[in-house]
């Protein structure tokens, strides 16, 4: 083989072997398409990616890559000091307080949750290895005064998850990690969902390898939890990461009104049907919203989309609990 003239050419020749491409991608924690993008120049690796790449290559390629990078004057050192690893930038915290103080009530939940989750995704998955963050909320209490299920209210992710996860939202119950965190008011972590050794209730969803749920608390009451999923095993072992997540959960809790927090004695989660069964029922969601909103229009009542959705979610919860009870 001719001597490659650039590091991209060298990488191209190395990963022309699919097995080697897969191995290197796994070793440095990127998807194999990312390696292809580096070759074509569609994207450029950051200094620490290049350092990881150097370590992942066999010795003979490592020296050549190192010398080609040197010839192209590519610096492998990170130049700017990053934030302390276990703290949220205070300027951002101040922005969240400011948003809470100045946003109208009908937009507050959406604004704060998206602002915080966007920041958390950038901070917790800066290399976009793959993470989803979902805000899970307790459904309103039943006529007996008990919270019977949780609902994924909003979510965002980095690939392989689609950016906006709202349309994938489901109900969660006692069978879920989120259910555990809410019922116990305690953080729950499963470091390897592919193994069935977890003591905690949890089931694996698409792409998810490790997961964490952190309760959203106020005045010793709970409103739901922050649920994080990663494509990596053991992603939530790091104490710095756990500390950051606890802080993000505190910020997310600011998006809820005091009455949305309930005493833990009121949490009596039921088992919810499978994702597939839930989605069958959700196919009727849009039509139900239209019916509720048209009824309001025809009787000259103003109803917001959020209010209409809440009514329909409550209908769906009732039906899902009924299905679940019949199945037992």
């Amino acid at each position, binding site marked *: 083989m001719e001597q490659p003239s650039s590091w991209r050419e060298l990488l191209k020749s190395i990963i022309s072997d699919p097995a080697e491409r897969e191995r290197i991608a796994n070793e440095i924690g990127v998807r194999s398409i990312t390696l292809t993008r580096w070759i074509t120049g569609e994207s450029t690796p950051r200094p620490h990616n290049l350092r990881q790449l150097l370590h992942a290559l066999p010795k003979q390629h490592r020296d050549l890559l190192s010398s080609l990078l040197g010839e192209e004057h590519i610096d492998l050192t990170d130049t700017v000091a990053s934030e302390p690893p276990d703290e949220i930038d205070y*300027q*951002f915290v101040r922005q969240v307080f400011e948003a809470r103080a100045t946003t109208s009530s009908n*937009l507050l939940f959406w604004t704060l949750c998206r602002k915080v989750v966007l920041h958390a995704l950038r901070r917790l998955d800066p290399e976009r290895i793959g993470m989803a963050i979902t805000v899970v909320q307790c459904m309103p209490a039943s006529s007996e005064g008990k919270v019977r299920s949780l609902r994924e209210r909003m979510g965002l992710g980095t690939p392989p998850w689609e950016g906006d996860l709202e349309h994938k939202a489901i109900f969660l119950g006692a069978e879920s990690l989120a259910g555990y965190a809410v019922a116990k008011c305690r953080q729950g972590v499963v470091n390897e969902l592919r193994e069935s050794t977890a003591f905690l209730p949890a089931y694996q969803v698409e792409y998810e390898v490790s997961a964490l749920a952190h309760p959203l608390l106020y005045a010793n009451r709970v409103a739901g939890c922050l649920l994080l999923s990663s494509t990596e095993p053991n992603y939530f072992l790091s104490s710095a990461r756990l500390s950051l997540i606890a802080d993000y959960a505190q910020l997310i809790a600011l998006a809820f009104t005091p009455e949305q927090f309930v005493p833990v004695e009121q949490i009596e989660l039921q088992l919810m049907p499978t994702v597939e069964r839930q989605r069958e029922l959700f196919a009727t969601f849009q039509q139900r919203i239209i019916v509720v909103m048209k009824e309001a229009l025809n009787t000259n009542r103003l*109803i917001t989309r959020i209010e209409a959705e809440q009514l329909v979610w409550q209908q769906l919860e009732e039906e899902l609990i009924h299905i679940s009870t019949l199945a037992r």
Partner: protein
Amino acid sequence: METYDPAKTKNWYILGDSSTEGVHLIEQDVNFNTSMGGLLPEQSQEPLSLISHVLDVACGPGGWALELGQAHAHMQVTGIDISANMIEYANAQARASGLDNVSFKVGNITEPLDFSDASFDLVNARHIEEVIPVTAFPPLFQELFRITRRGGIIRITGSEWGVTNSFAYETLMRQLLRASRIAGLDFSADGRNIGIAPWLRRFLRDVGCVNIQERPSFLDFSAGALQQSGGYRDLTLAFELMQPFLVGVGVVAPQEFEELKQRLSVEMLEDSFRGIVYTLTAWGQKP
């Protein structure tokens, strides 16, 4: 309630610069990146590797600049915007990502820009028709030309605000266009559209750009389309946020506006809903 007063604030942005708008713009950036086919879909890979200094004009919360800096570590990307709130938010996002090649600063693009001549290889401006008056375009393009290096690219993207089969959408849009006309933000002859698209090439030509090219795209937010839910959220939020502008300029009463918003929510959810926003990108080189 906030009021719309660009004479006082020097900020013509019709949706304000609240925290909600910051998050809304990040989401809108994602929608447009998808519909336009990427961050710089019209530029081939080879020129991209030659671009090292990029300016994003009226960058808002920095969605486009952050994504560009993340994808191309060799580029130094700067964003400017008149809103200190947006710039603070953009810088917070950059720090959270650990991006040391993206930075943001406050700047008013209706005044001379605080950059030396020939500072940038690429200058990008998306949807500035929503943030500066028509009269500010010619002097802004002179400035963009000045700060672009020889051989560098000036790139501008503008959108017409959509065609739908929703009565509420079309009514609200008519009110928005009337209000924009009163505020000096539309290019059209009769106020029936924004009218920015035909002007993009002309702005580039008038300042002396060569090799001018154009690329159209569209955002389909019809029922069943890929961008239905993103488009739905974008528009319902945009209408929520533009209430101070529309009511302030006096084109609609608050009660009528509320009723139209509710009707819009229903109509956009119907299976029969159809809606498309047209976008045009034009770019030219400084000789």
